[in-house]
């Protein structure tokens, strides 16, 4: 059950389970010095999806901003589990935090303040089509969705 959600730019919350041709999952310790790994994977996924250079860079930054509130609450035992789904038209990323974080199964944990700060919010609003978070079965899931901008290809 979704108890709270935030979204932007008037787009629908992503439906990650349906319609996406490819998926990559990444799990890494929730430590600031490792967030660059998530950015690398984001850039690789966007390149693999054949997004243009500007949008590759945009996704790299947007994912970083999406993860910051989770990193702020991460403990030594926590890890971040990320799921990248894409088609030729869109990329979705979802992130959960927890000692045994999984995007399905509800074994992540709640994040007290998943909402980005003001600067992060401005960046995310500008770079992606929609972003937000929801709480489901005790797990906070942060997500973003970026559609291909053909004018940037």
């Amino acid at each position, binding site marked *: 059950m979704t108890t709270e959600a935030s979204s932007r730019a008037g787009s629908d919350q992503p439906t990650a389970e349906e319609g996406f041709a490819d998926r990559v999952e990444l799990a890494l310790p929730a430590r*600031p*010095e490792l*967030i*660059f790994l998530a*950015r690398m994977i984001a850039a690789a996924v966007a390149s693999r999806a054949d997004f243009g250079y500007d949008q590759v*860079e945009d996704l*790299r*930054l947007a994912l*970083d*901003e999406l993860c*910051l509130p989770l*990193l702020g609450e991460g403990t030594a035992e926590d890890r971040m589990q990320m799921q990248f789904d894409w088609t030729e038209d869109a990329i979705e990323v979802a992130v959960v935090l927890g000692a045994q974080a999984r995007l399905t199964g509800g074994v992540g944990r709640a994040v007290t303040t998943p909402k*980005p*700060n003001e*600067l*992060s919010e*401005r*960046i995310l609003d*500008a*770079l992606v089509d929609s972003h937000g978070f929801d709480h489901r079965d005790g797990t906070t899931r942060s997500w973003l969705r970026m559609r291909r901008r053909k004018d940037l290809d």
Partner: protein
Amino acid sequence: MSTEANFAISETEDRGVAVLLVRGEVDVSTAPELGNRLFSLADEGRRDVVVDLSEVTFVDSTALGVLVGALKRFRSNGGDVRLVVTEPQISKVLEITGLTEVFSIFPTSEEAVGA
């Protein structure tokens, strides 16, 4: 190749103005070091500082937060934090966040020092 390996700060002085040349990615992991260097300069009584971001390949909101914090500190002492920005991606983040209206931004370190 890690962020830590890419990130570096070197400090020089040009016409009495401290210049920090930053390289690599400035994110939640590396921004605190930049903040420490900037606040150390403020503690030393430096009036102005130039932060050269021309060799920076990535900044996020934590980096911007550090720069804004330093700007407040230097301006409270009658000084300024001047930025050198040449990379389009860095300019874009500053524009998105409205910080192009807050910082003095220059295309070269020479111009920033001479301003």
